[in-house]
């Protein structure tokens, strides 16, 4: 119990250091540049205290649950017994299909349930004047994230170079930017950051690192990271693509009317 309390106090102290810069920024600029007192000092201080406690509990929970869960899934889905191949035989990338399906499901489910994506989708519907539907956008982002994560795990399994995929993705984004409706570009770019929430990031990271240690011939140092990059690039492609298709359908239905 005492050990745990010391550990907790140390974490709390460390987190104090972590939130210090943002507190100094907000309070400092408020008092020195805007020169007004804080509007609700009591409420604000209690709020900062909540943030502090929240980060400590969250990080502790990550170590106990989300990180182990990600690596557990990676190990269980890659054991030779589960794959059903004899030990001495080399395993081809096709045998890992459950890994890809798992990664795609995690990406699809978390993106679809992401609250900030809902807000972005509603805004996009507003900007486009109804050409883009909020639901269509959410589904396309969810498919984008799911596909991105599946491709990312495929990359870890085969050990191919990360930058080939990402730079290839950049080129697609730039080509799409050329043809997509101008109104939607800023929002589409930002949707990449929206899908990587506080809960998804640790789980997906642990999954990638776990896979890289479990698949023979892979090194976590070289192959373990990169899944988050896929998860934040593919939504951009999906949103731009959906906007283009929606615009095209809209034009066609307009021109077909007499």
């Amino acid at each position, binding site marked *: 119990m005492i050990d745990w309390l010391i550990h907790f106090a140390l974490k709390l102290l460390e987190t104090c250091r972590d939130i210090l810069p943002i507190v100094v920024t907000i309070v400092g600029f408020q008092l020195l540049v805007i020169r007004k007192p804080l509007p609700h000092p009591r409420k604000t201080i209690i709020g900062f205290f909540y943030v502090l406690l929240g980060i400590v509990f969250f*990080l502790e929970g990550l170590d106990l649950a989300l990180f182990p869960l990600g690596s557990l899934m990676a190990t269980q889905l890659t054991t030779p017994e589960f794959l059903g191949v004899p030990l001495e035989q080399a395993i081809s990338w096709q045998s890992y299909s459950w890994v890809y399906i798992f990664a795609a499901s995690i990406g699809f489910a978390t993106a679809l349930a992401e609250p900030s994506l809902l807000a972005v989708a509603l805004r996009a519907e507003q900007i486009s004047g109804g050409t883009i539907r909020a639901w269509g956008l959410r589904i396309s982002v969810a498919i984008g994230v799911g596909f991105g994560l599946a491709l990312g795990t495929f990359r870890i399994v085969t050990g191919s170079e990360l930058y080939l995929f990402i730079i290839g993705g950049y080129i697609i984004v730039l080509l799409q930017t050329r043809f997509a409706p101008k109104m939607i570009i*800023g929002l589409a770019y930002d949707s990449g950051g929206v899908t990587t929430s*506080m809960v998804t990031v640790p789980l997906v990271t642990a999954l990638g690192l776990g896979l890289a240690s479990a698949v023979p011939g892979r090194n976590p140092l070289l192959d373990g990271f990169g899944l988050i990059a896929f998860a934040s690039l593919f939504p951009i492609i999906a949103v731009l693509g959906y906007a283009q298709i929606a615009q095209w359908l809209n034009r066609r239905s307009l021109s077909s009317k007499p």
Partner: protein
Amino acid sequence: MFKNPFIKQLFGSFLDLAPILAVVLVFQVLVIRQPIPDVGNLIAGTLFVILGLTLFIQGLEQSLFPIGESMAYAFARKGSLFWLLAFAFCLGFGAAVAEPALIAVAEKAADIASNGNLIEQTDAAKAGYALGLRITVALSIGLAILVGVLRIIRGWPVYYPVIFAYVCIAIMTPFAPAEIIGIAYDSGGISTSSITVPLVTALGVGLATSIKGRNSMTDGFGLVVFASLMPTIFVMAYGMVI
């Protein structure tokens, strides 16, 4: 549905985790069909995560967010360019340092680096590496927000800085050490999650509404993407230097 905001937030945090738990459960029951080790720890950890998220979001909503947003609007409406840019940089830097997902992943990256003999296998070396990584990311996010604000003021198209960042990344990748590339590419997505996105979006939309000739819908966005590309460039540079 719920009167008490705390209970409501607790439910919201549970909903954040629900899709992950559902997918994992389905796979465990239908596909893997093996006993899960340490179920007790997993359940305790999940409860910790839910409680932590709840306190964190609740705390942000009653301290940082209202002040940060009203300040973003205040700076956007009046005030000198210098103070606006200084505020933008500090906001980006501070938010990234406090980002919990970044804290967690930087520690993981330090573990991996020390297991791979990239750095010494001591706690001090690991802590130093993790902190160095986070400071690098935070500096780059501060700079990204600064440039993004300048873009909104000057009215440059959103894809100029993005194309520039893409080209930088493509040129730097072959020269960066192979061990840093993965974490560098990931760092952008990791650091644009809970604190950075709402504050930065408020700043962008506030600026675009208050400047004549800017449309809050089209010009207000684009700060987040820049904040998620800049860390990649900086972390690769950090890898080359260290």
